[in-house]
């Protein structure tokens, strides 16, 4: 019986449910409803309904895969954009810090002992908003899990392909399957609401950008006042 161990292929409904969870979108649910119109009916009647070489069950499986692929694409794109933002901010921070250090050296000569305050300020400005950091971490974890899931799947497939499994191999396979299932559940949890997280991230970024714009305008106003004061001072007779 050992040779009869089969790779547990997720059912079509499981795939689509996972995709719906991943996307968190009513669209996936709608696709499920459309499929529901034909699924079961043909099979129950013992019919093999074939359209262009694809029966309803194959369509269901393929649709589940397409929805999953689409959800993974979304996750990858968002992760890559979050990474790009991180790199951009690091570059901006490095440049600003270098300028602040040069300024601090000159400021010290004028007796300004808190010269590092400017450096601290620019570092603070360049920090990724806390909300965005959390989302980035969630996405990175989800991506790592997806990689682990893929690896597990490959191992199981290879082992199953050998047809005859020893007791030991079977135990390993069972462990892997159990682990894979845990990973799958974990992945679904991580994925859940990815879209909502992204929308929240967009709001968070826009909010912080608006705050920074307001602070920059306020600072520009102060700079103007400092220049005007310098003009008055220049006109004063020593």
């Amino acid at each position, binding site marked *: 019986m050992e040779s009869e161990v089969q790779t547990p292929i997720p059912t079509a409904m499981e795939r689509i449910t996972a995709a719906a969870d991943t996307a968190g979108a009513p669209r996936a649910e709608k*696709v499920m409803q459309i499929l529901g119109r034909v699924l079961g009916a*043909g099979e129950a009647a013992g019919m093999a*309904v074939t359209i262009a070489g694809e029966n309803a069950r194959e369509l269901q499986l393929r649709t589940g895969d397409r929805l999953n692929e689409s959800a993974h694409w979304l996750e990858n794109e968002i992760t890559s954009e979050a990474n790009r933002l991180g790199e951009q901010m690091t570059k901006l921070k490095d440049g*600003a810090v270098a300028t602040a250090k040069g300024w601090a050296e000159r400021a010290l000569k004028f007796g300004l002992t808190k010269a590092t305050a400017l450096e601290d300020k620019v570092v603070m400005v360049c920090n990724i908003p806390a909300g965005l950091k959390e989302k980035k971490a969630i996405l990175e974890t989800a991506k790592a899990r997806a990689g682990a899931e893929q690896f597990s799947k490959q191992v199981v497939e290879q082992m199953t392909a050998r047809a005859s499994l020893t007791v030991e191999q079977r135990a390993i396979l069972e462990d892997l399957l159990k682990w894979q299932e845990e990973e799958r559940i974990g992945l679904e949890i991580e994925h859940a609401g990815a879209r909502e997280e992204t929308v929240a991230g967009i709001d968070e970024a826009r909010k912080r*950008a608006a705050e920074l714009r307001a602070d920059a305008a306020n600072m520009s106003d102060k700079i103007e006042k400092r220049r005007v004061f310098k003009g008055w001072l220049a006109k004063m007779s020593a």
Partner: protein
Amino acid sequence: MNLQELKQKLSEVGFSDEVAAKLNEIVAAAMAKGSLDAAAKQQMMDLIDLDVEAGLLEADTMEKMALALNSFAATNEKILEMHDEKEAKIEADVEEAVGQIEDAMKTPPAAPTL
């Protein structure tokens, strides 16, 4: 403008704390002396230049950061839009295929030819 007026204006400008303290110190010393000498005046000018420079760096960093965040938000919005389009395409494809299957199920199977 006399020194008293200068002191008053100084408090209204919004210099950074440390520069404001230094400027007040110089003005207070000048008031005690009864005049602002050239060296003290130059020192004040240099301090103001430094504070303007610091302010410019802060404002510039904030502007660039705001730009980066807005660009991040806009790109993510575009990604979501593309994702919606992908899923709309899946839905349309499924709708079409299901429609064909439904039609096929309505059509009675052809009678076997003998």
